[in-house]
């Protein structure tokens, strides 16, 4: 079997791949952390508008260090900037946007994704401090919910599974998973392989996936620039 730990995509490359599917003019929410990188990789000529749960639409990049205004932050509590076209609103209005299906895409991280589209990304089920934030709203709000994730855990266990073992964030909500090895759609309760790294075989991929991987027609090569 190929050593997937060596050839996998970086987080930036996964984010780059997800960015290619965002259409011009889309309203997008990016989960805190690694999904935030998606904003950096918008294809030339396309302009998405990013939503932050705390009440900010169409924000600009982080200010230079030392120039932060701590009244202007994103959902990750990092300083951002406003720009021409930004809009500010309160929390109930912000989640009206989310819950009311006004966002085109939400892109989130995951602990586990099941072939049913169930997502677990808020609690490890252990005795840490439970914290949910806006994840449960986003998964039932955005028109399309995609996940960015390593294909396996640090210990090598599959993150794409038949059934989630961790507490759920949402039921049947994810429709596409961008992993470090592949792009997998969730369709009618099945994982359908759309793209994979050319260096690995379908068999390799199946070996590190916790549920049956279907494919319909050709599986495209997943090729990302060096990032």
């Amino acid at each position, binding site marked *: 079997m190929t050593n997937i730990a060596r050839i996998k995509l970086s987080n930036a490359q996964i984010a780059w791949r997800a960015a290619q599917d965002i259409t*011009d*003019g889309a*309203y997008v929410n990016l989960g805190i952390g690694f999904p935030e990188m998606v904003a950096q990789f918008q294809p030339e000529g396309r*302009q998405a*508008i990013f*939503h932050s749960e705390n009440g900010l*639409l*169409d924000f600009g990049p982080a200010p230079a260090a030392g120039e932060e205004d701590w009244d202007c932050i994103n959902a990750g509590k990092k300083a951002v900037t*406003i*720009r*021409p*076209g*930004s*809009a*500010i*609103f309160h929390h*109930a*209005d912000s*989640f*009206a*946007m*989310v*819950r*009311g*299906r*006004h*966002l085109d895409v939400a892109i989130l991280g995951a602990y586990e994704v099941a072939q049913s589209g169930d997502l677990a990304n808020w609690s490890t089920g252990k005795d840490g401090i439970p914290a949910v934030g806006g994840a449960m709203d986003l998964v*039932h*709000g955005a028109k399309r919910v995609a996940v960015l994730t390593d294909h396996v855990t640090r210990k090598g266990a599959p993150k794409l599974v038949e059934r989630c073992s961790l507490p759920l964030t949402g039921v049947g909500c994810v429709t596409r998973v961008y992993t470090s090895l592949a792009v997998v759609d969730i369709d009618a309760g099945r994982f359908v392989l759309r793209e994979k790294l050319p260096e690995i075989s379908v068999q390799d991929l199946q070996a590190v996936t916790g549920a049956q991987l279907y494919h319909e027609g050709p599986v495209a090569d997943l090729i990302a620039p060096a990032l």
Partner: protein
Amino acid sequence: MDKRLASVTEAVSGIPDGATVMIGGFGGSGAPIELIHALIDHGAKGLTVVNNNAGNGHVGLAALIEQGQVDKLICSFPRGPSSEVFTERYRAGTILLELVPQGTLAERIRAGGAGIPAFYTPTSYGTDLAKGKPVAEFDGRMYVQERWLKADFALIKAEAADPHGNLTYRMTARNFNPIMAMASKTTIAQVTEIVDLGGIDPEQVITPGIFVDHVVEVATPQQEEVLNRAEAVYP
């Protein structure tokens, strides 16, 4: 990502027969007269219209009803000093009326925009307007369950827009316009002025562009009240 359209004619051209259309305004204030008149010219029929009132005189919503384009009206107060057009059609049985208390109408629309399929309100409990609706007790008081209200299109009137569809409103012309923008699949705003991106302070945006699909400038919008005092008739 440029939501500007060149004309009200173009803006309403996609509204099909049978559509549900929310129309902003409270009486004439905030009523998108030019968009309504464009809809009359466009000719879509069999419409369900959501508005607080039923129009006055022979312009705007009243004219749309007079042209026979509205099969059903969802509103709170279809009576006015000159709402004869609706009255006549209602008495003739050629238009359906769903009467909703004003605050419930506003909240149902807001719920439609906010992804809340149902909520409980004390309003109308024990009255004829609660008939057939589920009721429930919370903390010792009785409430009526109301459902969200959504539409295919919203025709609204705003003051300023930027190309991304961020909107402001003039005085009490705000009324139902912001919530109807939230509750409709396609929201079309006629605005007095389209400003450049950045022309609206982000803190002063009332309707964020995410709720708006198209904006069209009507630099000198007509006021229903003024038209009616002049006994105007459309078309």
